[in-house]
């Protein structure tokens, strides 16, 4: 594990992309496949299935460090990371040796041979084996083993070990960067590595060897493997913060489609042994096949072999628009799909593109041609209330006309428009130039900052998890919490606000501070719905801070009544006043943040 811990340290010690690529490439080249496979797995952000309860881990660490729970919590809030908190709290241990010098360097003069694995240094794969056993042990035995490891490893290794036990590594390298490092290490096209990494990576030596196999090997034919997704870029803004669509050229060179708010996915139906394969893969590399049987059944009925790119939504057939994202969420994570779920939240795959047809890779063909093939494929098998449809083209010949159509987005339950060059191939990843997203302006409210608590990760020890409130009735009366938001402020604003919060804290509940209701922020969000998550009885989708309204005083903030105006239909959906009151009593404090949130 020392080699992996060294890699981690090296990645952590530089902000240079090139240095990170070099460090990873060297690691992949020099590490035996059984370990390199796990290296890839952890670096792309995968984690081991839960091995121990995190409450247990905390208890063992508290015992080992000899501190009380309240003090552990204070530390955890300040450090912003469970694995690191434990590593820092455990009793004193030997100072880590410097990681071995980078391969490009020959630092003979500095001489320590930190790379030579010591007698006691176990390889990464052996550590994973050791860890995997934990799951099946009694808590007492789990504790005995974990504590003995804590005692024998160096601080840096303890940190890595804790990371492997508690969740993702988060060393600031993206999947794309890992792909580039593999491509660099073994001299393969990065698009090919990206493709080979799709569809879930099994951390086995075989899988690693397939990942780095020479071009054109048998490895590149796998019946259930999706293609890397082509992602659209946001359009550059003009000086007045409007998307500068005119800069994209002639509107007639683009295909415009609605930007659906669902889960981007690939529907794969391929011929092969044992009847071939039928798979639904999300962009997050999750296998959704069993979760949306209505979609896979429809794909099975559609003749031919194909790979479609599209959006999975829960569709309201009566209203002829998608349900809000929250409804789709009730279907995710459920493999045992009941009749009621199929009726109330039917899944529909809205196909954007066809990437492969009867075993031929179409990605290099022009979009306009792929689109025609897609329509031929699906229209031939049209039926009412189908679980697979073709995404509608928004026909217009000028930006002005498109702008008008885009204005209807919210009433259609979509996020705006997608603009795709008619002649564009289907590229890999987020490549600027061909595909653009033209999102609708967010909904906004003005809300007052009322609570704050420290952030995680790189916002450790900074008060950056904010809770906002609006007036329940008249301004100056009672404030009710409506949303949390974390993003949108720049580093300088964060620092200023942090300082202000510390000086204007009215009350503290552990790490949470209630602050003077002074600062007003314009909160932007994509949609609003009824929920008991916050006192206001509402939930905002993708809330973020658009502006710090230093020009406004708290009395200018919105009232609950003015926010309710934004609800899509002020009918049965709107929360009766009574419900809001009750939700209040249940939530005396703003909600806790989950450890898992990435920043």
């Amino acid at each position, binding site marked *: 594990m020392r080699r992996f811990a060294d890699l981690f340290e090296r990645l952590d010690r530089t902000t240079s992309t090139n240095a990170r690529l070099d460090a990873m490439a060297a690691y992949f080249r020099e590490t035996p496949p059984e370990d390199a496979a796990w290296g890839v797995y952890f670096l792309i952000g995968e984690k081991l299935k839960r091995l121990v309860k995190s409450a247990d881990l905390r208890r063992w660490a508290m015992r080992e460090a000899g501190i009380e729970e309240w003090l552990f919590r204070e530390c955890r809030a300040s450090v912003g990371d469970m694995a*690191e908190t434990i590593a820092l709290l455990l009793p004193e241990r030997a100072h880590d040796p410097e990681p071995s010098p980078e391969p490009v*360097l020959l630092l003979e003069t*500095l001489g320590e041979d930190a790379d030579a694995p010591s007698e006691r240094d176990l390889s990464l794969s052996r550590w994973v084996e050791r860890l995997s056993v934990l799951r099946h042990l009694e808590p007492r035995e789990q504790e005995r083993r974990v504590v003995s490891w804590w005692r024998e490893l160096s601080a840096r290794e303890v940190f890595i070990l804790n990371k492997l036990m508690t969740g993702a590594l988060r060393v600031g390298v993206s999947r794309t960067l890992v792909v580039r490092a593999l491509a660099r290490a073994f001299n393969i096209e990065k698009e090919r590595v990206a493709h080979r990494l799709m569809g879930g990576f099994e951390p086995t030596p075989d899988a690693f060897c397939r990942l780095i196999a020479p071009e054109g090997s048998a490895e590149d034919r796998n019946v259930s493997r999706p293609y890397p997704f082509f992602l659209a870029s946001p359009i550059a803004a003009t000086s007045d913060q409007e998307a500068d669509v005119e800069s994209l050229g002639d509107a007639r060179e683009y295909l415009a489609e609605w930007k659906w708010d669902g889960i981007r996915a690939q529907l794969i139906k391929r011929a092969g042994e044992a009847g071939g394969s039928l798979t639904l893969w999300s962009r997050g590399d999750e296998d959704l096949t069993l979760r949306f049987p209505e979609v896979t059944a429809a794909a099975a009925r559609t003749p031919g072999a194909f790979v479609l790119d599209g959006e999975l939504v829960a569709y309201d057939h009566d209203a002829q628009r998608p349900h809000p994202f929250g409804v789709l969420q009730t279907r995710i994570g459920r493999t045992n799909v009941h009749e009621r779920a199929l009726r109330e939240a039917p899944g529909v795959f809205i196909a954007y593109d066809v990437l492969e047809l009867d075993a031929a890779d179409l990605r290099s063909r022009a979009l306009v041609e792929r689109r025609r093939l897609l329509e031929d494929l699906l229209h031939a098998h049209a039926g009412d209330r189908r679980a697979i449809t073709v995404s509608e083209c928004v026909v217009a010949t000028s930006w002005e006309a498109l702008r008008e159509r885009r204005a209807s987005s919210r009433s259609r339950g979509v996020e705006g428009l997608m603009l795709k060059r008619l002649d564009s191939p289907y590229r890999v990843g987020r490549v600027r130039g061909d595909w653009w997203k033209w999102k609708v302006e967010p909904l906004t409210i003005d809300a007052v900052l009322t609570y704050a608590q420290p952030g995680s990760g790189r916002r450790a020890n900074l008060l950056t998890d904010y809770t906002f409130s609006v007036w329940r009735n008249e301004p100056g009366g009672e404030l009710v919490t409506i949303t949390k938001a974390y993003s949108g402020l720049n580093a300088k604003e964060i620092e200023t606000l942090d300082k202000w919060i510390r000086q204007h804290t009215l009350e503290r509940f552990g790490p949470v501070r209630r602050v003077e209701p002074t600062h007003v922020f314009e909160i932007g969000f994509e949609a609003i719905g009824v929920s008991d998550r916050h006192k206001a009885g509402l939930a905002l989708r993708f809330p973020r801070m658009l502006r710090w309204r230093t020009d406004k005083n708290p009395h200018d903030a919105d009232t609950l009544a003015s926010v309710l105006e934004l609800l899509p239909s002020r009918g049965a959906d709107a929360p009766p006043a009574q419900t809001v009151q009750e939700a209040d009593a249940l939530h005396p404090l703003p909600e806790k943040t989950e450890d898992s949130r990435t920043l």
Partner: protein
Amino acid sequence: MPASPDLLRVDDLGLRCELGSFHVDPWRPVEHAVITHAHADHARPGSGRYWCAEAGLGLARRRLGAKAEITPIPYGQPFDLGSVRVSLHPAGHVLGSAQVRVESPAGEVWVAAGDYKRAHDPTCAPFEPIPCDAFITEATFALPVYRFPEPGIVMDEIVRWWRENAERGRVCVLFCYALGKAQRLLAELHARREQLPQAFAWVHGSTNLLNPAYAEGGIDLLPTRRVSDRDANNPKDAHGKRDYTGHLVLAPPSAAGSTWMRRFGPASRVDTAFASGWMHIRGVRRRRGYDRGFVISDHADWADLVRTIEEIGCRRVLATHGSSRTLARYLREQGLDASELETPYETEGEDG
């Protein structure tokens, strides 16, 4: 015996001693000010008269101005203010930093320690534990996760970092607080001068301003050159820029990301680091976007705070700055009479 009023307590202007009619480190101008050290948030100009440790006179003078009326007092020498007896004792924080000991006519002793540390620092006299009835302690790093490594080990890492970057043809920019930390680093580097790629370091003007005060105090620092001085020994490179390849530059954190940094060439050729206790936390280090973080602090870590309070053996502890609530609660659980010293400013600046 009725409880006597607190010898030191916070009012609008700072930490006030009623019997002595003076303030310790007042944040607004007062008549009489006793200064623990010369950092800007402790030594503010505008007061009528100042007292400070003799070793800190040079720095205090630079901070408070030529016209300020300052009385330097040698460490340990008592002097009377009002009806109390005051003396200053080394705090180990920066050159001339002092704990303020105040003794009432009834013999009650309070010590306001100001900022302090117990770790080795060649630029200032080491902290002396002073027996007292009440101890006012800082709590900047008062969480058990703060357990700092030996400064010697960290200094060796800094030397190694400089050497590696010199071999790779890169420039090292080490950010550090301009008063105290910069000179401590320069003194430690001077002690390791045989191992350094260069016999001097470049410094930002604000850092250099304070170095003479150290020379006056007889402290050997690695020689420095001001970046802003045009120096014939530092030739221009092909792009007409001065070539800092292989050199170390010390600069205050405020210079990070500023146009001032451009002179050192493209970011890909510059390795940046920050020397501070805050670098102990990975998230803080990553947020600041430095390549490296060196954990070296002028404040006591958790272990040293707890050890110091034990050694002093006082009944009562008042904690201020940073995690004062946490420290006070912890000490109460250990059976001490501990509380937070409420100040209007909860400073948790990252200058540690």
